[in-house]
């Protein structure tokens, strides 16, 4: 195998210094270097162009607001089994979800608070009862209300377990939630395979319910659960192959995953 770097490596500044100059930072050494190094000059020019496009397409204040909201939501939630400790990192949730491989893991729920800020125009046109699966997607028609289960292509059976006032209901389609509801996902498959699940709020926040995990054939519950508060909820539950879920999150094209709309209902 060749060395990690070419013979010219030592002549080039480290990548973070080139990146910093492309970002607009001053670095006399790098500036002098790129004046005489065509490869680095080309690299920095390309990065500058890509960075400019990124800045034009991304709102920094909105990004920071989302990070703040996510941090606040996390700090409100107790860690599982440690009622007094309210600091739970996203990484620990993901790690917990990642080890869910055994059947019927009905372990204590990790609570994830799901909130969606109201926004003008509402969310995608995917209200309850309108979940006709797109071509190539889930083959079964979803419905509202408690039903036994819904089977999808590939032998995958998905249901949602909604806990409300101490009662549990199994739902197999778009569903509504009230303050205090807890929701987790039940996945059954007749074959081994990777899967992921989570809630994508209309303002882009992702709440993991089942981190990407290789599940054996059988029935599995997400170890993580979402708990809803009194805020208006507009989100979509996504379940499927981790790659498909990742693409659905990025593109909002839900045709290759199970996608159920989750909305608020009025309290009685």
């Amino acid at each position, binding site marked *: *195998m*060749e*060395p*990690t*770097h*070419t013979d*010219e*490596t*030592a*002549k*080039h500044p*480290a*990548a*973070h*210094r*080139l*990146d*910093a100059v492309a*970002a*607009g*930072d001053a670095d006399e050494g790098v500036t002098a270097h790129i004046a005489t190094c065509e490869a680095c000059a080309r*690299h920095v020019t*390309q*990065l500058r162009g*890509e*960075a400019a496009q*990124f*800045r034009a397409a*991304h709102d*920094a*204040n909105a*990004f*920071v*607001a*989302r*990070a*703040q909201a*996510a*941090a606040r939501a*996390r700090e409100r939630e107790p860690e599982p089994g440690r009622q007094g400790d309210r600091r739970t*990192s*996203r*990484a620990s949730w*993901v*790690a917990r*979800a*990642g*080890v869910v491989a055994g059947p019927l893991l009905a372990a204590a729920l990790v609570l994830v608070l799901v909130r969606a800020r109201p926004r003008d125009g509402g969310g995608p046109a995917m209200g309850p009862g309108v979940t006709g699966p797109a071509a190539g997607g889930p083959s079964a028609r979803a419905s509202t209300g408690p039903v036994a289960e819904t089977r999808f292509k590939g032998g995958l059976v998905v249901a949602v377990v909604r806990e409300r006032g101490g009662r549990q209901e199994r739902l197999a389609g778009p569903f509504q939630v009230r303050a205090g509801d807890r929701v987790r996902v039940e996945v059954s498959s007749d074959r081994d395979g*990777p899967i992921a699940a989570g809630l994508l709020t209309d303002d882009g926040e*992702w709440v993991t319910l089942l*981190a*990407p*995990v*290789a599940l054996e054939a059988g029935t599995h519950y997400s170890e993580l659960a979402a708990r809803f508060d009194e805020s208006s909820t507009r989100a979509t539950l996504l379940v499927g192959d*981790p*790659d498909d*879920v*990742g693409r659905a*999150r*990025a593109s909002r094209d839900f045709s290759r995953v199970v996608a159920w709309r989750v909305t608020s209902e009025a309290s009685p």
Partner: protein
Amino acid sequence: MPDPLAPAEAACLYERYGFFLLRRCRTILRDAAAAEDALQQAFERILRSGGAVLHADEPLRWLYRVVDRCCFDVLRSRRRSIGAAHGDEVDESAHPGVDIEARDAALKLLATMTEDEMRIAVLLFLDGMSQGEIATEVGLSRVTVNKKIQALRARAARYLDRAS
């Protein structure tokens, strides 16, 4: 208690460096959605205790260390789930001195590495740092870093041999 960072200051950092940070997350994780999560998580940490970045000589380098740690957390969780097989191909442009084939092999092996190995691999294969610079960065002796680098290169070579 580390100083927090004001949202307006965090927004300025994102405006200036967001592209580079997200690009780094994508390169390490090879998963666009996971990269966005990792970057958001990094900014949560920065808002909570990242005031020191305002005094850093090299702010981007400082921020890279934060996002690296967030990405390593994701890789560790992935290690317990579906392993290193998961991930998109890296299409980010590389530092001019980096052997792209070796870099990509090392990135695919990241999830199987220890924390020290991950840090060294990223500094070596992504940042194009010298052994001396890496030793300073990770706080290990140059001899130790050299041994670890040789082991990483050997693993990457074996990976490439198997893949070819």
